[in-house]
């Protein structure tokens, strides 16, 4: 177990270093920062409730950028290992495939969370300069709770992207992960629509297969000044963690059987 953890941690460290040096990481960070600054400028154009505008737009941007970054880093990092054949070296040593998956996931997630923390600090500074303006207010704790829910969504999509990255070609993995990222935001609505169309079984299968990000939405509560994490949110947090664990478990099982030759 200690061996598993230490090797996974080493792999994760290498992945984080690679990720932080990548242009995508810096580019998306700059993009998110630009969106946050833009939201601050736009909030001044709105004739009321500026805090709502800046919070809404900046946290939505952070959620979007985190998801995109998780997908690109997971697929990019794994495909680089496969292209350069470094994966064969790694797996030739006493490193099991499950350790590799865990290390990749940990590394990509750490890089995404690093990015998310930087973006959240940037957004917090901008948001709190608009505090005490007209409209609903929220606390620092509520703001951090909403950011935590965004981090959970990033965790889920990282697990999904790592799973596809180790199982299929980069192009397919990119399309599948991006598709699931979009579907995860819509599945609650799609389920209702399918049930209305008497497609209850299909609705049920899709709902149980795809992650449901509507459960992890704290933005609406935050901008209306409501509590973000309540007792009702606790099962959603558990759901996100379990979903990620199941995705990684599937990745490990199928990756064990994959011929990398």
């Amino acid at each position: 177990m200690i061996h598993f953890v230490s090797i996974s941690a080493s792999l994760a460290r290498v992945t984080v270093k690679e990720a932080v040096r990548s242009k995508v990481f810096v580019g998306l960070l700059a993009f998110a920062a630009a969106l946050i600054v833009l939201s601050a400028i736009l909030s001044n154009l709105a004739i009321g409730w500026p805090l709502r505008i800046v919070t809404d737009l900046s946290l939505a941007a952070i959620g979007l950028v985190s998801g995109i970054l998780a997908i690109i880093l997971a697929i990019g990092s794994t495909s680089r290992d496969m292209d350069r054949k470094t994966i064969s070296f790694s797996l030739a040593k006493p490193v099991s495939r499950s350790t590799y998956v865990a290390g990749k996931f940990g590394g990509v997630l750490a890089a995404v969370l690093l990015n998310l923390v930087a973006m959240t600090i940037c957004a917090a500074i901008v948001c709190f300069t608009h505090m005490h303006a007209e409209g609903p207010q929220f606390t620092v704790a509520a703001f951090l709770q909403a950011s935590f829910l965004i981090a959970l969504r990033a965790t889920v999509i990282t697990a999904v992207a790592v799973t596809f990255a180790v199982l299929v070609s980069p192009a397919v993995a990119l399309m599948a992960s991006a598709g699931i990222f979009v579907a995860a935001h819509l599945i609650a609505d799609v389920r209702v629509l399918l049930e209305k169309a008497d497609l209850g079984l299909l609705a049920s299968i899709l709902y149980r297969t795809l992650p449901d990000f509507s459960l992890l939405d704290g933005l609406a509560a935050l901008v209306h000044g409501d509590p973000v994490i309540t007792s009702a949110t606790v099962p959603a947090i558990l759901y996100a963690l379990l979903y990620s664990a199941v995705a990684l478990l599937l990745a490990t099982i199928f990756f064990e059987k994959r011929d990398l030759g």
Partner: protein
Amino acid sequence: MKAIIRVAILLAAVAAVVAVQDLASSATARPSRPSTDAVVPRAGVVRRLALGHATAASDVYWLRFISYLGSDQAVRDGGSLLYPLGTLITDLDPRFAYAHEAAGLALNEFKRFEEAQAILDAGVRRNPGRWQTPFYAGFNAWDGLRQYERGAELFLRAARVPGGPAYLADLAARLFARSDAVGQGIALLDAMLADPGLTPSVREELQLRRQALEVEGFIRRVEERVDLFRIRNGRNPVSLAECGVSPDGPLVVPEGLELGLDARGVVTVEGFERPRLHEPGSSSPRKHRADHR
């Protein structure tokens, strides 16, 4: 030399692109379409396209609403995009109370009173904890639709919300008086006074307005008797006693109220300020019907 030629070619190419773009845009330029033709998507579609970020999408359309409101196009169109945009924004985020209010007032400004009322009424239903929304809805009903009873009911509703200013109850009483619905106003105030959750200051204010409406109702009955006397006898009454208003009845003047008749046979009131209304669009308070005789 080669580098200079390359830069020159690049600049020429950029200039060509700009020129062709201008040409293309002027070739396709059409007079701006009437905004009734413009398509404002449905809230459900936008919610899905925004990947569940409905409040953020609502904010984006809110910024578009504001930019349209301040544009020349809005003036040319008579603000025809305001209602579809306002509905989209408030459907995306029904708790965006400020958008309901600002959209309602913008529509009122463009004299789109029915649309303003629809959006404000939706705001009243969706955000019962805000006094501002029923206040603006009441204002539009009074100022735009000239529906004084409806305005009065909305002002009373606003007065009942914690934090609502006490003057709203007075405004409501004036509207009830203006709408000739004094009895209905008293009944509504009684219903509100039955609410045990009222704060003492609001209760006191509502009781004062109830008393004022009762007195106003009495004065109106006196005025009706004076009118009736004039019709039956073909002359103005000399005193109110001739109309049955005396200490012996049948109409007994309440304590503290002094009624009389002027030379034109118009009922005069002392000891009580009648709930009158500043008429929308006028600079002077509307004279009561008794003053016209």
